[in-house]
């Protein structure tokens, strides 16, 4: 197992574009968070008239964009090997496929954690600097249990997103197909829910779509009756990730490595 892990780690580390993943994630995260924090006020739409403002959640909004870097890395970890044909030597060196997939899962988890740490720290510091003065408190002072839950939950969220992407890539193999499927599954439900006025539909999407369920962990104020609980939401995402990883593992195990 150590050998397989080392091999995966070397592959990930030595490709220039993936070595930059945490930085890219942090930059993308800040690119969304900074303008939102800079313009936030008590009456902005970002706060929501009904729910009020949640400084921690507002600060961490950028993760919705920053996760792109993690998704691309996780997908490429699998699909790039099929694209270039590297999968054949990989499986020759380590024929036990579940071991290969486990090693890949561990490396993308590490990458996601790294990217998450940088992004979350950047967001919270930016929120601490920018928010007070706009009638909103800092997300850091005082450090509360819900704020810690939101920060650590966001790290777990990114890990689960990475595993979800890896599993789909193992099942679909082609980069463009896998990437577009992941992106559609994550972003489209929330967008489409905006078109449907019916409360029940909206609640359903909000609770059980992978992205909105997982991001519920970022709520620190009293969650409304419709929204799913912070840990329950992360649990929903974990269930999706597990299912997709299992499907990916079965397909990876059974199929021939096409070149």
């Amino acid at each position: 197992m150590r050998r397989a892990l080392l091999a995966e780690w070397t592959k990930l580390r030595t490709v220039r574009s993936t070595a930059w993943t945490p930085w890219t994630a942090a930059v993308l995260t800040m690119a969304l968070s900074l303008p939102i924090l800079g313009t936030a006020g008590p009456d902005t739409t970002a706060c929501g008239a009904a729910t009020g403002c949640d400084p921690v959640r507002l600060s961490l909004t950028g993760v919705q964009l920053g996760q792109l870097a993690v998704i691309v890395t996780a997908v490429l970890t699998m699909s790039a090997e099929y694209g270039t044909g590297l999968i054949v030597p990989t499986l020759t060196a380590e024929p036990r496929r579940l071991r290969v997939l486990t090693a890949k899962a561990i490396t993308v988890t590490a990458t996601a954690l790294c990217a998450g740490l940088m992004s979350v720290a950047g967001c919270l510091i930016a929120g601490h600097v920018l928010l007070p003065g706009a009638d909103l408190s800092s997300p850091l002072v005082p450090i509360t249990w819900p704020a810690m839950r939101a920060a650590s939950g966001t790290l777990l969220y990114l890990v689960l997103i990475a595993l979800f992407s890896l599993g789909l890539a193992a099942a679909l193999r082609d980069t463009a197909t896998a990437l577009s499927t992941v992106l559609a599954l994550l972003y489209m439900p929330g967008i489409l829910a905006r078109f449907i006025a019916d409360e029940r539909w909206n609640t359903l999407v909000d609770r059980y779509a992978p992205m909105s369920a997982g991001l519920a962990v970022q709520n620190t104020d009293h969650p409304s009756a419709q929204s799913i609980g912070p840990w329950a939401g992360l649990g929903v995402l974990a269930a999706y990730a597990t299912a997709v990883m299992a499907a990916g593992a079965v397909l990876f195990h059974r199929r021939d490595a096409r070149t």
Partner: protein
Amino acid sequence: MTAGWRTAGTGFGGLMHAEWTKLRSVPSNLWSLLAAMGLIVLFAVMISSGNPGTYAETPYVDRFRFAHQTLTGDGSIVTRVREQHATHPWAMAGVMIKQSATAGTPYAAVAITPGHGVRMQARFTTDIAGGAHRAPRWLKLVRAGATISGYESADGRTWRRVGAVSLPGLPPVAEIGLFATAPGGERAVPMRPALVKTGPAKATFDNISVTGPALWSRWRVDDVGRADSPEPPATARPPDDGGAFTLAGLSGDILGQADDGSRVIAAVAGSIAGLVPLLALGVSFIASEYQHGLIRTTFTASPRRGRVLAAKAVVLGGVTFAATLVAVVAAFLASQPLLRRQGFGPPTFPDPSIADPTVFRVLVGTAAFLSLMTVFALGLGAVLRRPAAAVPAAVAVALAPMVVTPLSGSPWPQRLAPLAALSIQQVKETDDAFLLPWTGRPWTGPAILTAYVAATLVMGWLLMRRRDA
């Protein structure tokens, strides 16, 4: 080598034939197209069947804060709206005569709005435009029998008549006063949320005077249309000496049910769902050639790279246009019975016909929008070459306005992004709605998208010429 392959190298027609063969013989291309078509229909059906729209129970929305006196017989009210704090283009602050402070009763009002100037409105159906002014503005309402006339003025001396309406059956005793409203969730283009920051209705009035032969001069403040108002009206009454008075209330609206284009908009709203597979198709159509080295064969057969890219763009654009047009028309036809069942039926919402020029423009324009977006992704694929870079880039550029717009509340992200082409789906909007930018100018958006497509294709062509395959 077959005869077809030999002709592929000869003219542009042969080149297009070669690209057509590549497009239809790769299974993942066909799956992307089918997925897009399926999603377009599926989401149109979902949106059409899960949407009661704004008017779930009554054919009107009647919710506002009303500071009023009881007026018997003829009379008038004059005030100056000194300041209007609401930002929604259809927020209203002004003067009103209403049968009673109960939702749904007949009324006539003249009001100032932040986005649509002075309006005189009555009985949920009449809407007369006055001058395109914002607060401060003087407003006057005069009752003479069943006729109510509305006036506006810049200084309170020279008055301009906005309009006159007849309210037959208005009893001699009616309520007259000041009102303020600001649409929150209420005024949505039923299928698309309006693009505005929601905030409470708030306006400051001064120089208030009510005149009438028989006036019961006690002011009362009511939240019309809110039986259980979560924020009871303040105790402050308009002063009798004509000083300033601020009326602040919850969000609300005064609006009658009218054909707002819902039957068309809902039927094509699902088009956005098909976007992601189409973007993947556009990127793959060129990037996968680089990935598998096929591009070298392509360029050996036809060394002029501009022609190859042009052939790809024409074939891809044509095929996606035809496929999505089928899907959009199917979605439109499948949605109509569902929308009727949701209450969007005649006489208020007449059955739309494909032959109607607006409906035709929306349907064909939506297919053109989807096809242009696919070619845009092709251009990005030509520039970036790797699907891992081009797919997220295309998706981010396409979806960013959808994510950013609700967060920022500004109309500009969706006006300037490639997605601006969705303006072609406009039917009867009065303001920019979510993903319906450029109100009143449906062709501006497609022009912007065309510019994006041309720019990426030219950039891709220049890079292809310079770079080795």
